[in-house]
């Protein structure tokens, strides 16, 4: 059995290839400056390496038995410890298994994780989207389909108000590359990707298409200004960065 078998993997396998124990028999080829390029070496292997199976086997069995017993009898580590790389919390009397059992166990994603899309709502629950076609334009995957329509509403002062809104707003989640450009492009805070959910597994492709209704169902009321109306959310937002406040354009 080779040497790599007989030693524990936790230490000593950083020997330089031409370290001690290698006897140079001949140098076949040299660099211009005289450094050897090809050497024939004699590898010093212990004569008895083939007879040391039993001790090495016993040692290896000890290691695997330790892991097996720990993992069989001790409870799993807490999800947080398993899920986060480099989480400290070396709890005592827990086993070594790191597996997260999705979907029963779910890891909380980072705050800025881009998940399933959602469409935000106006005060009256209607879709905020004005079908400006910015997002289908910017989308590199061409996964957004918007068919606009007009709305007519007679205001209290008798004016007829005509607006644009999407009759159809569909996103094919199988095509989406989750780049987030649609969210960047949206001038109305109408589309967001902050649901923290994956695109769901589906049994046929048609079911992977998110409709206006399904995305609106995940949406909530947005307080952003729209069409010059409504409160300026920038003034009401509590936590603003200092850079933004000093920006002369605002």
């Amino acid at each position, binding site marked *: 059995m080779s040497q790599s078998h007989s030693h524990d993997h936790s230490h000593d396998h950083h020997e330089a290839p031409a370290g001690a124990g290698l006897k140079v028999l001949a140098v076949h080829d040299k660099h211009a400056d005289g450094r050897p390029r090809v050497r024939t070496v004699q590898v010093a292997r212990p004569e008895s390496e*083939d007879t040391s199976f039993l001790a090495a*086997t016993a040692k290896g069995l000890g290691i695997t038995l330790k892991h097996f017993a720990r993992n069989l009898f001790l409870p799993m580590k807490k999800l947080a410890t398993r899920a986060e790389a480099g989480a400290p919390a070396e709890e005592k009397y827990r086993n070594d298994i790191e597996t997260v059992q999705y979907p029963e166990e779910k890891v909380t994603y980072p705050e800025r994780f881009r998940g399933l899309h959602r469409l935000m709502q106006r005060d009256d629950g209607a879709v905020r989207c004005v079908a400006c076609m910015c997002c289908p334009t910017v989308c590199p995957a061409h996964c957004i389909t918007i068919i606009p329509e007009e709305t007519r509403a007679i205001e209290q002062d008798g004016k007829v108000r005509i607006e644009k809104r999407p009759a159809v707003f569909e996103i094919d989640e199988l095509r989406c590359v989750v780049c987030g450009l649609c969210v960047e492009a949206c001038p109305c805070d109408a589309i967001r990707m902050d649901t923290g959910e994956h695109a769901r597994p589906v049994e046929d492709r048609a079911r992977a298409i998110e409709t206006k209704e399904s995305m609106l169902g995940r949406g909530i009321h947005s307080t952003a200004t729209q069409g010059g109306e409504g409160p300026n959310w920038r003034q009401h937002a509590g936590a603003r960065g200092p850079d933004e406040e000093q920006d002369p354009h605002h």
Partner: protein
Amino acid sequence: MRAPTMQARALLLSLLATLSFSIFAIGCGKEKAAPNLCDNQVAGALQPPLTDAEQARRRAVCPAIQAELGSPADARQCEPGSSILTCPAGAHCNENGRCELACVADTVDRCGGGTCTAEGRCVERGWLWVILDFPATKWVVLILLLVMPLASILTWMERRQSAMMQDRLGPNRANIGRVKLKGILHFVADALKMIFKEDFIPANVHKGLFALAPILAIAPVFIAFAIIPFGPTIYPHVFTDVADSSLMAQNADAYRDAIRLQIWRVDFGLIFYFAILTLANYGGTIAGWASYNKWALLGGLRSSSQMMSYEVSMGLSLMGTFLVVGSLEPGFIVEHGAVSTMSAANPANWLWLWQPVGLVLFFTAAIAETKRAPFDIPEGEPEIIGYFVEYSGLRWGLFFLAEFVEIVFISAVITTVFFGGYHVPYLEPDGFHAFGQALRLPHGVVVLLQIGAFGAKTFLLCWFQLMIRWTLPRFRADQLMNLGWKILLPLSLANVLVTALIKLLTLN
């Protein structure tokens, strides 16, 4: 009310009652006590007088017996089950260690309605006894209740255990509705998948041999189970009583209806195992040849060369145990242990203590025989895939299953030979005896405990084989041959020599 129906029911019930009663009444038959024909006084008084055939048999068999008849009554002429201390052919050894000739088969009926066996034994057996004692019945019980469940569960256990050893979870998902059982049902899923896969046979293979090979791989292993005593001898008549060891030794009538939980009791038992299991090797070799695939052929060749190398030391490593016990019959080894001064239920009397070198050597060679890591050269998944590279579906499944049945079989052999077989430590036929205390148990409880002990020991050894398989990396071909020919073979020869020397020195 429909009276006829009631009557029919009553009739049916009474019939059933009668039937079950008669099953118990007839129950299991007995070996009949019969006069010894070799005794001249007995033979002279017989009616009808002895026939020519009987006289001829007496002349052939009796002088050897009578030479010993004059010796003290407690002197043993023979040892039941032994291959060394035997009676002349045609006579049999009774439980007291005396040779007897009670009848001669196919002549006059001396057994009073019973049948006469080839070794001159009078037997009267009920049909239930015949069914229960029929080898096929035992085989079905052994295979369906112990071997197949264990082998199937091993297919799951191997993946789960290897996962545990590598800090993973392993397959834990297969379920029927809400029944999950930690994933044990994965073997059902596997079996279903293999059954419903297309039975694909490549165009250029030798079709007959291609189909034969998986059967050749699995059938010998099942056959070899015939020699394994998987439980103690059962005495149906005293199932609820405490068995009486002294009566048993005197071969009292109540103990003559024994059912041995061993399919085939044969003097050359372990030799039979070597011979039969060698046939399984043809499965791999023929699969490799018939597949018409160079990788499969390489696998088949490697398989046969490996088997040849390791079978030698496998047989020799067991020779020491033969020398110690004096029998090749697994049942005899289990019943007697290493020495006669200790009870066979004493763990110190099991052969692991008497043949530790033989145990390690045999275990190593036996693992090599299963063609699993670290001896999986014939498969060699990263390079040649192995002799079953062209197989798929259930045909491949048979190879796979054969491997696991072999694991169970080897565990059963090692349990039988080295770890006291079905014996529970300090459990005698009538209960526990340890530290001067005795806890008497009914015969039925003892039997169940002992069968359970056999299963538990076999299971533990299976587990240990999986531990080895997932701990050690694969040998190179040259290392494999070095280990087989330069280490195992000399060591097993030395083991035989030393054992024989010790045996010689302690004999006199």
